[in-house]
């Protein structure tokens, strides 16, 4: 399968790790209290996903079927440890925010899921594309959910973005309403569940509408009587 368009469509929309597969929800709920946190977590996971997919795909003929899951986990854990140290060294402020959730990428079902479902059966290049696409899809979901919660919860957007991306990105930090009193529920984990639920419902509605348009464009179907 060298259908890269399909791979990216899968990762970003059709088979999105969060919005379609409903994986990686634990870090999602815990971390996405702001768009910046979501972006940081998403990018860290993307890096791990990409590297894990490449390594596992290139070793796929060496790994015995019977012990593949422990091997995957071991490889992913090694990569996550690296990511953890890198973020601690160069993005220390973000590290303080994300804290425990970086090591927990090991247990992130999205990473193991892609290793098992894709990388262990596909060539290296396709696996790399899949890792990137899935990671970007995950990042997209985390940023969108983080942005919704941040806007509703504290009326800011990308606050503290300069801590993550460097001072050049300070322009991203916006305050939408000056003396906003705050909507605490949205910042707390229940807000994550609420926003995710409404976004999932929204995705369903969009897809149903698209389906209807498609079937209407395909011409009148002589449907049997209801």
């Amino acid at each position, binding site marked *: 399968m060298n259908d890269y368009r399909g791979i990216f469509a899968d990762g970003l929309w059709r088979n999105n790790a969060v919005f379609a597969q409903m994986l990686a929800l634990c870090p999602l709920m815990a971390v996405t209290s702001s768009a910046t946190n979501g972006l940081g977590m998403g990018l860290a996971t993307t890096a791990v996903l990409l590297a894990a997919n490449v390594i596992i795909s290139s070793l796929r003929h060496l790994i015995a079927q019977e012990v593949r899951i422990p091997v995957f986990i071991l490889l992913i854990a090694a990569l996550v440890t690296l990511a953890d140290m890198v973020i601690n060294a160069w993005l220390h402020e973000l590290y303080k925010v994300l804290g425990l959730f970086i090591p927990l990428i090991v247990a992130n079902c999205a990473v193991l899921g892609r290793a098992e479902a894709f990388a262990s059966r596909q060539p290296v290049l396709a696996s790399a594309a899949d890792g990137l696409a899935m990671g970007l899809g995950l990042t997209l979901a985390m940023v969108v959910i983080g942005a919704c919660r941040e806007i509703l919860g504290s009326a800011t957007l990308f606050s503290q973005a300069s801590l993550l991306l460097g001072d050049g990105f300070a322009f991203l930090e916006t305050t939408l309403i000056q003396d906003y*009193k*705050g*909507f*605490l*529920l*949205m910042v*707390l984990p*229940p807000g994550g569940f*609420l926003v995710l*639920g409404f976004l999932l419902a929204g995705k369903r509605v969009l897809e149903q509408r698209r389906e209807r348009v498609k079937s209407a464009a395909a011409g009148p179907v002589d449907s049997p009587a209801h």
Partner: protein
Amino acid sequence: MSASPLLAGAPHAHGGDSLQQLMGTVLLALAPATLYGVFLFGWPALNLLLVIVLTCLVGEALCLWLAGRSLRPALLDGSTLLTGVLLALSLPPWAPWWIGVIGGAFAVVVGKHIFGGVGQNLFNPAMLARIMLLVSFPVEMTTWLEPRPWFSGTTPSFLEGLHITFGGGLPMADGMTGATLLGHVRTGLGLSQPLGEILPGHYQPGLAALGWTGGSLGETSALLLLLGGLWLLWKRAIAWTIPVAMLGTVLVLASVFHWSDPERFVDPLLHLVSGSLLMGAFFIATDPVTSPLSRMGQIVFGAGCGALVYVIRTWGGYPEGVAFAVVLMNAATPLIDHYLRPRVYGRTWLGQPKPVSERARRAAAGRDSGSGPA
């Protein structure tokens, strides 16, 4: 009306009451406490009540329209109205309009229609909204007001009332606000004062029972709530099980602890007349949609609510815990219904067929031999 046919075994009998009649009865039972709350806290309380009820109705209509269902029956059955009134009665009377709008919308959209509308909700919508507001807006939700009844010269005029509800910012002078009784006790105990020093000057059992005290819009008057609740019992709109189990549990727990250390644990009567305990026991926990079906299940449910109320009030982070208690027990309702399901007609509690009596056997035998081919 809510008894899900999946859980409650046949035979079913219709009581003859429509949902609309039941909701009307409950609203009527709440009317004295509501009117008293409006009398006690003036125009702003009435504004808040209207804002919430209107928001609930608009939210209901919007959800029904989105789901493609017909508007009239669901809008007129009174359940939305009751949700709105219950929510309003549990809020601080001078809360700004946006508290009402956010709370009302949350109750109807998230509390009710996400689960599929009337009769489908897992949690009590009004209490869900109250908890959401309390967690999200702690300042507005704990600004309590000393009573300033109509005709006493201290009530705000109609225009001032509009300003309080819609103008934002309470123009409150010192001495106008105060802690509720339970809040005051909580603060005092936190400073490790004995109750003997905390209560005098703040707690007069008679006034508290009448409702002449700061508190939520419709929850101050224990007497009127009790009256409404007893009327509901008399009309058989609610079963006795939940209120009795809930109030009894609180009374027993409070008595035992008060007896063990009167300086640390407040007396049972104070527990009974303050906060929203009576409101919760008669009007909120008894919601037939979110409470168990069988009598035994209802007793467990009520006792659980009562125990949680006492635990939260005494050791929890908030001075009052009725909303939390009811919603937590709502979550336990499916489990209670699973283990304490109503006995299936014609079977024992364990599900075995009931032994057939000798007389019934003879009657059946006689019918068999008399009629038709074997």
